């Protein structure tokens, strides 16, 4: 040990102990001379062994202590300890000067201890800084904040708290929160909630409160509370927050009002639109028969608006012949699945026996539980339908008149042209016979009449030749075509006509149908003819559905077959051979030309057309034609027929 308690010989153990203390300790004699110091003083204050016996005034670190000498004298004189803060560079010390006496001797000097408080000073400064910083933040927050004790007594608030509630810090200190603002926050559950929160059972549920402020008037506040606890402190506090949501509430209310207005307006638009377009809408949950109707639909069906709608009620209006459509809607989704947009037409039979024509478009969806629901728009197309029907009737009549006129004119013209020479032939032949029967026979006269007979016969033959030139078949145009597509076009053309006759058409068109070669228009005429025949055959049927099935399929690898199956009156077995004769008909208004022409068209496509009686009801007419050769279809030239006479 290099340093020691000079002049204190009995204290070896004490010196040892002092050297282990990290706090620098310096003994100063009465005469202000350093008597001794411990190891920490050497290390911490830079004292050296040479400093022992020197006056403090000459030791730099002690010389920097202001008024040290006077203080030491004072301590010796008073016998009372003195302490002071001392800054040495960036270090802070608490210097303590204590009177020192050894044994029974009077005070012989002072003991200086230097406690380094640099770290403590730094953390205190930091704490002060943090506190000021937090205070600044709290005071700039616009929302009132207040810290209360667990029994709700106010401890401190931020500036916004005092200004908002128009109270001062002093008058609220220690006042229970539920007495502030005329008891605005004295609601029953507040204290209970605090207890729950502080006991750690429930978080505080923010509460919306109304409060009338002296200057601001009525405001809506959300009161929140958060427990504040400092580790090591048993005392708990609660931060109470007030959030002014008045402006937000007003904005929301305005927005609600606005969107409600907009909603009302678009509803009004919709209603007016439905009224003008005579369109109603409905939704139908099939499983529960829950039906929702728009106002316009009530008007169309002529039910009192708001009346509960049931299927039974709807049935009382739907035309008896169209009721089956309702049943079909129930089934359709089970059968198909997938996309289910479809449209159909039906009629309403009103109590006054008038008929309304409806056009409906429905979209089938599945709700969350997988239940079928329809959303549909229904338009009253009666006016349109009536004018369409009038137009169709006029067109049909016109076509009929045109055809009758043409045929009548044609017939008269043909009759006249042919009857003239025939008349001559008969008259001449009669004359000839008479001349030959005479006695003696007038052979010259007879020869003349025979010559005239031949001339007249030639003349009749010329008439026929001219007619054929006029109506003779031209060469047909051929192309590769998709029979399904051609069929769909025909269906599209005749659908409304078929629907009008109450026919339920089912198209069963085969997949992967090969192309065929032929005259598209002619084949379509055949298909149309078969469809019309089928519909006509069912016109008088009322004891069963007028079911019509049109089907296409591939046959024998190299052919395509189209069949039309009806549930009509059918035909007698003995009629089957005559049916395709040119003028054979079972129809009262028919021309009878259809099937024979159809057959000749199909035969020119190298195919065949036939008829068969169905097992149950009706008949099936079908044709098959060969498919187009190879993948690269060559137009097959179909020659015009020359068999009927001179070219």
């Amino acid at each position, binding site marked *: 040990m290099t340093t020691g308690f000079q002049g204190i010989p009995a204290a070896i153990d004490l010196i040892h102990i002092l050297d282990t203390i990290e706090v620098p300790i310096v003994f100063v004699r009465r005469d202000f001379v350093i008597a001794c110091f411990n190891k920490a003083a050497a290390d911490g204050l830079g004292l050296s062994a040479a400093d022992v016996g020197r006056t403090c005034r000459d030791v730099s670190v002690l010389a920097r202590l202001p008024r040290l000498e006077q203080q030491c004298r004072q301590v010796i004189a008073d016998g009372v300890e003195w302490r002071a803060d001392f800054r040495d560079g960036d270090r802070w010390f608490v210097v303590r000067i204590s009177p020192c006496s050894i044994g029974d001797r009077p005070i012989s000097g002072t003991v200086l201890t230097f406690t380094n408080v640099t770290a403590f000073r730094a953390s205190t400064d930091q704490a002060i800084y943090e506190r000021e910083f937090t205070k600044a933040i709290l005071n700039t927050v616009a929302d009132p904040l207040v810290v209360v004790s667990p029994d709700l007594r106010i401890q401190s608030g931020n500036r916004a708290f005092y200004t908002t509630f128009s109270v001062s810090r002093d008058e609220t200190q220690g006042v229970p929160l539920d007495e502030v603002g005329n008891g605005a926050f004295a609601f029953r559950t507040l204290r209970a909630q605090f207890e729950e929160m502080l006991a750690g059972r429930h978080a505080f549920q923010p509460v919306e409160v109304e409060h009338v402020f002296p200057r601001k008037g009525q405001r809506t506040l959300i009161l929140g509370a958060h427990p504040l606890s400092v580790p090591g402190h048993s005392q708990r506090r609660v931060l109470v927050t007030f959030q002014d949501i008045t402006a937000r509430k007003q904005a929301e209310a305005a927005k609600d009002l606005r969107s409600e207005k907009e909603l009302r307006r678009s509803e009004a638009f919709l209603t007016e639109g439905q009224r003008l377009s005579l369109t109603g809408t409905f939704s139908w949950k099939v499983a529960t028969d829950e039906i929702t109707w728009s106002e316009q639909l009530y008007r169309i069906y002529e039910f009192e608006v708001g009346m509960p709608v049931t299927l039974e009620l709807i049935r009382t209006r739907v035309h008896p012949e169209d009721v089956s459509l309702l049943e079909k809607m129930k089934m359709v989704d089970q059968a198909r699945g997938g996309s289910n947009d479809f449209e159909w037409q039906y009629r309403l039979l009103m109590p006054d026996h008038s008929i309304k024509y409806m056009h409906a478009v429905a979209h089938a969806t599945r709700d969350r539980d997988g239940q079928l629901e329809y959303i549909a728009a229904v338009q009253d197309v009666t006016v349109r339908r009536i004018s369409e029907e009038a137009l169709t009737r006029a067109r049909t009549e016109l076509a009929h008149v045109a055809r009758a006129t043409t045929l009548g004119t044609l*017939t008269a013209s043909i009759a006249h042209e042919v009857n003239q020479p025939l008349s001559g032939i008969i*008259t001449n032949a*009669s*004359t000839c016979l008479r001349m030959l029967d005479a006695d003696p026979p007038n052979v010259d*006269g007879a020869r003349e009449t025979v010559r005239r007979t031949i001339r007249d016969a030639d003349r009749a033959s010329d008439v026929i030749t001219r007619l054929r030139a006029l109506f003779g078949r031209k060469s047909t145009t051929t192309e590769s075509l998709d029979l399904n597509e051609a069929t769909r076009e025909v269906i599209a053309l005749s659908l409304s006509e078929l629907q009008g006759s109450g026919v339920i058409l089912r198209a069963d068109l085969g997949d992967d149908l090969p192309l065929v070669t032929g005259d598209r228009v002619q084949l379509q005429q055949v298909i149309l003819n078969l469809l019309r025949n089928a519909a006509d055959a069912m016109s008088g049927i009322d004891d069963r559905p007028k079911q019509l099935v049109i089907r296409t399929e591939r046959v024998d690898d190299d052919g395509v077959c189209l069949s039309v199956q009806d549930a009509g009156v059918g035909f007698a077995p003995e009629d089957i051979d005559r049916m395709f004769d040119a003028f054979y008909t079972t129809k009262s208004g028919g021309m009878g030309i259809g099937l024979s022409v159809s057959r000749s068209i199909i035969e020119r496509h190298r195919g065949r057309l036939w008829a068969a009686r169905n097992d149950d009801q009706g008949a099936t007419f079908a044709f098959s034609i060969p498919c187009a050769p190879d993948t690269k279809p060559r137009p097959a030239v179909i020659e015009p027929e020359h068999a009927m006479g001179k070219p």
Partner: protein
Amino acid sequence: MAKRSLVSVVDDDESVRESLPDLLREFGFEAKAFASAEEFLASGYLEQTRCLILDIAMPGMSGQDLQEELTRRRQKIPIVFITATGDETVRPLVLERGAVECLFKPFSEKALLGALNAALSVA
């Protein structure tokens, strides 16, 4: 044998004008053929004609026009109409106006004889 009765034929069709008079002569009548109503009216044979075989459809004056004209002139010549159009509606019309018969071409010898007999019995 009494003087043969004159049967006049008015038809625009030449084969009729050639063949019908021959047959009428075979029946034992006198026969004259005219290509139009106008030609007949101008011929001067009106008075002698005991029976008129008259085509309906002709250019210019039709058979019915001639029937009217004869009625107007009070020439009561029995008329047998012949027509090639096959229009059935014309027959009751002309019979109502006094025609003896209306034959549709081609007509048989028997039908023609029947009509002629009816015509001559009227006269």
